[in-house]
């Protein structure tokens, strides 16, 4: 099988989970000797040579091609109104607005040039890049003929997938790693939703990272369930991490690690912490990360008068993330909506028992974890208390959790994906 795959980022230059998932998937495909042509907006040159990479920034567009007209139109249309910035945290937003104000002078000319230098990030001109990416995809689909099927990852690459399908006539599979409803709750960014919806409807088949995501796609995007296959993510390395880093405080530590935003449910962690501390003052809670709800969480912790037991670390990077996992006795992910959620698996690799919300995709694959509804702070507090005090259960979770992790392999995911391709091609002919 030869696959023309459109992504947005690829390790080592990634800013989210999407790049990691693509890496795992391509690695799995290699294992089964499948050929992948992987297109990204920007190649840095230090990617692992595991696929036939195409750098979209290098592709020259033939603007005389009449069939491309439609994609040009999209581009000029979007250029006017793209002040929308999905995916951006407050710090990044500042960086990008600075960039947009000071550095970006190329807007007008670049529309008419036949090559485009993508940033490959999640910037202010994201929507422009997305539609320009579609144009590049059309060109690639016209030039290359050595592929059987097209595969596009998340909405950023959906217009590219659609364009490639229209030009080449080959079937399209779209892969949904997250939906706009996971990112923004009920107040969706309309242009992003429209692109997602168009991609799913244009596709011959849809892949979702969890049953949870599949349900959203059926309910909110109007796609028949029979057109959707669930392929859970896997882990690249299931080995147990033995850290030398030692805890400096005598108390047990319960950790929340992630962006402090609505989607991740930080407030439920705070409320549960209060219930636990009232019962057992010899626990420390840590909220690691940054985000737009950080100050609200600090206020709430002060209001609940537990600030000597509840700590904030700010954004953690590099070794600090590992250290944090290493000194945690319980890891909690109370996400309100999490298509998959790879972080609890990292915790398991550090031999830390985890509590995850039922509203996360990872709950479908991790059996040896306590699962609670994100809003049920009483159940969450009970679970934290139990894992801290009843050694039996936490020991069991540690052992079984790491066993379970070993079964989550990308080659299994890739094998299932190949059957999805085969089925899709068979339905075509």
């Amino acid at each position, binding site marked *: 099988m030869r696959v023309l795959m459109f992504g947005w980022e690829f390790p080592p230059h990634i800013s989210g989970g999407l790049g990691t998932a693509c890496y795992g998937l391509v690695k799995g495909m290699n294992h089964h000797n499948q050929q992948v042509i992987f297109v990204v907006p920007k190649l840095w040159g230090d990617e692992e040579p595991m696929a036939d990479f195409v750098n979209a920034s290098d592709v020259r567009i033939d603007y005389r091609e009449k069939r491309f007209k439609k994609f040009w139109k999209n581009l000029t249309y979007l250029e006017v109104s793209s002040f929308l910035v999905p995916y951006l945290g407050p710090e990044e937003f500042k960086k990008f607005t600075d960039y947009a104000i000071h550095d970006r002078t190329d807007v007008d000319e670049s529309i008419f040039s036949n090559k485009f230098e993508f940033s490959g990030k999640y910037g202010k001109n994201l929507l422009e890049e997305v539609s320009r990416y579609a144009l590049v995809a059309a060109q690639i689909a016209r030039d290359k003929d050595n592929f059987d099927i097209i595969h596009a990852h998340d909405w950023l690459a959906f217009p590219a997938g659609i364009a490639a399908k229209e030009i080449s006539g080959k079937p399209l599979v779209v892969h949904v790693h997250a939906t706009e409803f996971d990112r923004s709750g009920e107040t969706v960014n309309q242009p992003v939703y429209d692109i997602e919806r168009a991609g799913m409807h244009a596709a011959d088949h849809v892949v979702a990272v969890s049953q949870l995501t599949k349900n959203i796609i059926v309910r909110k995007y109007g796609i028949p369930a029979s057109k959707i296959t669930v392929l859970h993510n896997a882990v690249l390395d299931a080995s147990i991490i033995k850290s030398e880093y030692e805890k400096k*405080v005598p108390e047990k530590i319960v950790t929340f690690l992630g962006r402090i935003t609505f989607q991740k449910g930080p407030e439920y962690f705070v409320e549960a912490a209060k219930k636990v501390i009232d019962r057992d003052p010899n626990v420390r809670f840590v909220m690691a990360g940054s985000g737009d709800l*950080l*100050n609200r969480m600090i206020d709430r912790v002060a209001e609940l*008068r537990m*600030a*000597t037991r509840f700590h904030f670390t700010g954004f953690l990077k590099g070794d600090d993330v590992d250290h944090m996992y290493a000194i945690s006795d319980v890891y909690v992910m109370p996400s309100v909506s999490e298509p998959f959620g790879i972080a609890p698996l990292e915790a398991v690799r550090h031999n830390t028992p985890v509590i995850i919300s039922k509203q996360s995709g990872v709950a479908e694959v991790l059996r040896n974890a306590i699962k609670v509804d994100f809003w049920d702070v009483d159940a969450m507090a009970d679970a934290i208390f139990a894992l801290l005090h009843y050694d039996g259960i936490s020991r069991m979770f540690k052992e079984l959790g790491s066993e379970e992790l070993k079964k989550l392999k990308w080659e299994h995911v890739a094998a299932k994906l190949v059957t999805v391709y085969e089925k899709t091609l068979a339905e075509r002919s």
Partner: protein
Amino acid sequence: MRTICFYFQVHQPFRLKPYRFFDIGEDHHYWDDFLNRNVIRKVAQKCYLPMNTLLFELINQYRGKFKVAFSLSGTFLDQMEAYAPEVLESFQKLVATGHVELLNETYTHSLASLKSKEEFQALVRKHQERIKELFGGYTPKVFRNTELIYSDQIGAMVADMGYEAILTEGAKHILGWKSPNYVYSSANVQKLKVLLKNFLLSDDIAFRFSNKTWADYPLTTEKFVNWINAIPKEEQVLNLFMDYETFGEHQWEETGIFEFMRHLPEAVFKHSNFSFSTPSEVAAEVSPVSKIHVPVPISWADEERDLTAWLGNDMQDEAFDRLYELEKLVRNIDDPEIKRDWGYLQTSDHFYYMCTKFFSDGSVHEYFSPYDTPYDAFINFMNVLSDFMLRVKQKTAALQS
């Protein structure tokens, strides 16, 4: 007798270094030595040294008819000794003229007066001893509490310790129709005299001096003397209380603030019948006109003149209460480092940095804060406090075994 009473507050806190969650339980040094040293060195060059020289000249020039009072916080004394001994020398030289009065306060510029009489008195005694030690046996007679915080209850505590007078703010909501330009006596303890800051004329120098949008800009000595001459004849005392850093630091040298001060005594002597006095002279010579009732604490900060710069929001109250929960435990521990950190952590500035009153006086708060936001200030303080609590707990456990 009509007289002007100058009092300057000199204080620097021990600022905390960025102290991370990962440091808790391991790193017991909390103070940003580099930053603290830099601040002292910078302010010494811009303010303390040139202004001390100027005051020394004026005192000599007018043979003691010009005089001022200082309150030097203990955290300032400690840092001066460590980082700028030449500044300490110049203060010693000023005090040795006999025309500079020193006041007492809590050693670590603490808010203990609002929480614990015992801790408050301990910190005051410590300040007394330190002043005595550094200034040739000098014993202050007048008290000034942190940020001029005062209430009837605080007045009683201060009188108990034998002080003749206390300084505070001439807050509008306390005075009503009354004037700050008299000596008052404390509501509960008659013998304790209360000197009130005239905030209009004090702030003309301290805050508005270089404000070009102010209708009276620029402020000249003639203008200022005209204003004090306009004060009704029967009002006797003009209390000009301000931060010492006004001179050269809040108001830069370029604004002309030093020249203003250099020529002010001359203008006062020539064109008015005012003299200069120190707080203890005022207390000794002027009798009180009436009692002043202050049931709820006042201070000299912000438009509200209350405690909301340091206490009142959840972060401040949490930090404050958790800190003072340790009081009894710390008292039983005989460890110089625990005692030192306990004192320095009480400094009011830590709570000031957590203030969220952005819209009214936020710019002043921001100017003084080493943190980006009050939330950062809170997190950092609580991380430090968490480590300090662990140390106190360990020491206490060691005592019991």
